[in-house]
């Protein structure tokens, strides 16, 4: 459903992403791991059409993000880092706006907004303005925006960042509920998340893929069998040589 082809991004002389390729199929939850600054967010921003790649492209449900950006974007739900949302709007109005931009009208719009409100458990704050919400609720509101048009591809940038353990549990549960009928990418630097929700994981470091496999395959790479050790082994040296 999602195919990323040799995607790369330079910011001036800095190569933030150096040619990354991978596929995500329906039913897969791909964990996108890597230290801060490894290029996770940049890669996601290129797939979602927010940043133009320097080279390479991504194909979303048969649509090239560069050639047919609007068609590609229709098939994507995106939860950006830090869950941005229009602070002055109420939750319900914000979701209505998102549904309208997604081309929903009339009864479809109403049903989609109601379903997203229920699924993301934001019923109790629906008339509250977003600026007054706690981080956990804001995260869920932005999550609701990402899923309300029932996209086949769902991309989430650190969806559990800054949440308390209960809120993390809720978000992971929501991801698992949707996993069967979607292709999902979740970026994180919390390794326990991989075990909790992912069917496969990619580790990137210094803008390149350094490992790609199921959680158990990755664990087998280290003698201790722990994901933390694999992560450190694959990314530590790279980071240092990168900044040298």
């Amino acid at each position, binding site marked *: 459903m999602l195919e990323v082809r040799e995607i790369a991004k330079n910011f001036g002389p800095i190569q933030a992403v150096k040619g990354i390729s991978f596929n995500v199929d329906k039913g897969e939850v791909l964990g996108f791991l890597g230290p801060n600054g490894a290029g996770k967010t940049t890669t996601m*921003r290129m797939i979602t059409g927010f940043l133009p790649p320097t080279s390479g492209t991504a194909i979303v449900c048969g649509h090239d993000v560069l050639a047919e950006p609007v068609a590609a974007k229709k098939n*994507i739900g*995106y939860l950006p880092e830090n869950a941005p949302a229009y602070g002055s709007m109420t939750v319900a109005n914000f979701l209505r*706006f998102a549904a309208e931009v997604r081309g929903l009208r009339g009864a479809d719009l109403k049903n989609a907004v109601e379903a997203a409100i229920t699924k993301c458990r934001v019923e109790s704050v629906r008339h509250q303005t977003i600026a007054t919400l706690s981080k956990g609720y804001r995260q869920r509101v932005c999550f609701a925006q990402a899923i309300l048009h029932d996209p086949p591809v769902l991309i989430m940038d650190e969806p559990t960042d800054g949440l308390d353990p209960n809120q993390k549990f809720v978000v992971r549960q929501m991801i698992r509920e949707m996993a069967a009928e979607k292709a999902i990418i979740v970026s994180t630097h919390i390794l326990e998340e991989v075990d909790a929700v992912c069917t496969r994981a990619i580790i990137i470091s210094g803008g390149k893929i350094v490992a790609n496999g199921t959680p158990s395959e990755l664990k087998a790479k280290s003698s201790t069998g722990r994901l933390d050790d694999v992560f450190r082994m694959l990314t530590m040296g790279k980071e240092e040589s990168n900044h040298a």
Partner: protein
Amino acid sequence: MLNMRNVWVVMKRELKSYFEAPVAYVFMVGFLVLTGFLTFFVTRFYERRIADLQPFFFWHPWVYLLLVPAAAMGLWAEERRTGTIELLLTMPITLAEAVLGKFLAAWLFIIIGIALTFPIVITTFYLGNPDAGVIISGYFGTILLAGAYVSVGMLTSAMTRSQVISFVMSLLLCLLLLLAGWPPVTDIFVRWAPNWLVNAVASISFMPHFESMQRGVIDVRDIVYYVSVIVFMFSATLLVLENRKSA
């Protein structure tokens, strides 16, 4: 090429957001009090004993100079600061649709303010027999002028995450466009620049195009001028947003 439905959705949200915050009310009251004060007390609307709106429209370029940059400064700067630009531009709409939607929202917002000055029209008709054609042409001109100011404010707003920087930049740019034909400004160029350059600088000024419409003359060239300014600023905004490196 443009899906007007998307433009409409973006415009509606943006226009609503003005009224969700106190911004809209502060702005409207500020605009009406300022134009009212200047018209009645500075240019002495009553004492002139002439039933026309000349002393009212006279102030518009100056009142806009202060207020339009304030109304437009948040258009993109706020989206960039809070990161919502990442949501907006990953929705299935084109950049041009988003930019046009926002531009129209801000312009419409100013037009609502202009429309609220209707009591002065009633007053003039009550006191005398003004030329309705001149009044209509005057309003038409001031709306076009406001559009040009909004397009400048939108451009500077796209260039920064800081609303204050956007405000100051667009105020300066609008001031330059206002005064470009004024002798103290053209004199700077007269000393060293060739004649064609002096004329070019003088002809980009808002003022002559504004003044002819206040006299009741709707000239196609003036309309073309305003449309060109708006199209130019609009394209520059697109270029700035396309080339941004991050949010």
